[in-house]
C-alpha cells in the first residue's frame, strides 16, 4: 500500500527526533562524566592511569563509530546478555563521547599555563583542590566551544544507530520512505530537522569561541 506523506508521518518523525535527542543527551551526559575521568587520567603524572586512558582515546579515535556501535551491540549478545537496542546504543555512544571529550579536555587542561599548577602547588593545595578550584575552571572556559562542537558531531553521529535497527530519526525516515516512496521529500524533512538541531548549537559554539578570543589578552 503506497500512501502519501502526511501529518501522521510528521508525528512519526517527531517521535524519531525524540529518540535522536535522547541518545545524544544520554551520551553527552555520560560523556561529561566519562570524559572528565579520561581527561584526568590522561593528564595524570601516574603512568598506570595515563597509559590506559591514552589507549582508550586512541582506540576510539582510530576506529569508525559504526564499528564501535557494532562491537558493543553484538558484544552483549556474545556475552549472552540480552540487553535492549536502546541500552546497547546508549552505552556505545557514551563510551564514544567519553573518549572524544576526554581528548578534547586533555588538550584544554594542558592549555592552562604551567605556572597555575605551580602556584597551586606552592600554596600546598592538594591535587583535587588544584584541579577543582584552579585548573578545571580555566580549562572549562577554553573547552566550551569545542565541547559544543562535539555535541553537534554527536547528534549527527546518532544516525548510525539506525543501522543496528534502533528507530531514531533516520530509521523513522527510512520506514516512512518504504511506505510512501517519497524519499526526496522525507529525507529532505529529516535533513531539515537535523539541521534545525545542529545549526543553533554551531552558532552558539562560534559565539563562545569569539567570546573566548575576546577574553584572552
Amino acid at each position, binding site marked *: 500500500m503506497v500512501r502519501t506523506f502526511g501529518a501522521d508521518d510528521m508525528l512519526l518523525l517527531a517521535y524519531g527526533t525524540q529518540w535522536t535527542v535522547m541518545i545524544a543527551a544520554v551520551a553527552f551526559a555520560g560523556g561529561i562524566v566519562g570524559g572528565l575521568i579520561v581527561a584526568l587520567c590522561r593528564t595524570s603524572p601516574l603512568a598506570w592511569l595515563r597509559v590506559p586512558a591514552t589507549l582508550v582515546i586512541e582506540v576510539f579515535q582510530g576506529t569508525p563509530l559504526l564499528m564501535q556501535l557494532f562491537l558493543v551491540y553484538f558484544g552483549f549478545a556474545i556475552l549472552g546478555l540480552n540487553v535492549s537496542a536502546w541500552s546497547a546504543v546508549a552505552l556505545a555512544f557514551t563510551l564514544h563521547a567519553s573518549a572524544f571529550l576526554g581528548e578534547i579536555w586533555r588538550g584544554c587542561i594542558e592549555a592552562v599555563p604551567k*605556572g597555575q599548577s605551580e602556584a597551586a602547588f606552592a600554596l*600546598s593545595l*592538594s591535587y583535587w*583542590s588544584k584541579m577543582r*578550584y*584552579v585548573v578545571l*575552571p*580555566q580549562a572549562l572556559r577554553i573547552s566550551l566551544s569545542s565541547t559544543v562542537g562535539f555535541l553537534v558531531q554527536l547528534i549527527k553521529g546518532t544516525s548510525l544507530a539506525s543501522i543496528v535497527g534502533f528507530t531514531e530519526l533516520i530509521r523513522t525516515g527510512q520506514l516512512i520512505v518504504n511506505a510512501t516512496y517519497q524519499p526526496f521529500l522525507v529525507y529532505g524533512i529529516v535533513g531539515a530537522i537535523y539541521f534545525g538541531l545542529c545549526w543553533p548549537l554551531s552558532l552558539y559554539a562560534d559565539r563562545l569561541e569569539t567570546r573566548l578570543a575576546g577574553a584572552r589578552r
Partner: protein
Amino acid sequence: MSVEIASPIPPPTAEDARAVERRAVLASMRHVDKYFGTFHALKDVNVDIHAGERIVICGPSGSGKSTLIRCLNMLEPIQKGEIVVEGVKLGVDMKRSNEVRRDIGMVFQQFNLFPHMTVLQNCMLAPMKVRGVAREDAQKTAMTYLERVRIANQAEKYPAQLSGGQQQRVAIARALCMNPKLMLFDEPTSALDPEMVKEVLDTMIWLAGEGMTMAVVTHEMGFAKAVAHRVIFMDQGEIVESAVPEAFFANPQHERTKAFLAQIL
C-alpha cells in the same frame, strides 16, 4: 638593576649577619645535585637558611639560581643530596613533606595569580582549603595582608585589571596569607616595567623589616645591599661565592663574581 632603595630599616651589618647565623636552621640543602636530562643544573649545592635570615641569590641566567629555590619547595625533584625543612627531609614521607611545605611561601616571576578569581579570592583559597580556616577568618587575614601591601582597595578586582606591580604585590599577600615561615622569591621584579619595580621592592623591604626569613633570586643589587644578610653568587650550577653584602660587593673573591658584578653594576 639600579633602583634607588630608600629602606626604612638599616642594612644588616656583618655583626647582624653573624648573629642570624647563630639562630636555628629553618631550611638546608646538603650536597644537592639536580639534572634536567643530561644538563647538570645544580652541582653539590649546600645552603643553610637560618630563621630570620635574608639571602639574595644572584648569577647569570642558567646558573641554577631559580632551580635552587624551586627545589626548596619541591617544585623540582632533586637527584642527589637532601633538603631538610624544619627538620623534615623533603620527598621521603610525602605527608610530612607537604606539611612543612605549607610554611614556605613562593612568589614567581610571572605572578601566577589565578585569573578567574578576584584578588580577595586568590588570597583566601589556600588558607581555606589547605589550613581549613573559616571563610570569615580567611577574609579578615586576606584583607589585613592586602592592606599591608597597599592594595586592599582592589580586593574585588580580577588580576587582569591590575598592573604588573600590583599583581606581584597581590602574589606576595597571597603567599603571606598562609602564614609562612620562609618566603621564596623567584626573580619577582624581572617581568615588571621599570616604574613598577620599586613598589614591589618596597613591599619586600617592608616584609624584611617584619623579620621574615627570605630567599630572593634577583638582579636588584640595591635590594641586596639594603636588606640581605648574605649574597650568594651562582654560576654553572655551583655556588661560587657566599658573603655578607659589604664584602661581596666591595671585595669579591672569585674572578667569575668580579666579571658578573662588572656587567651588572
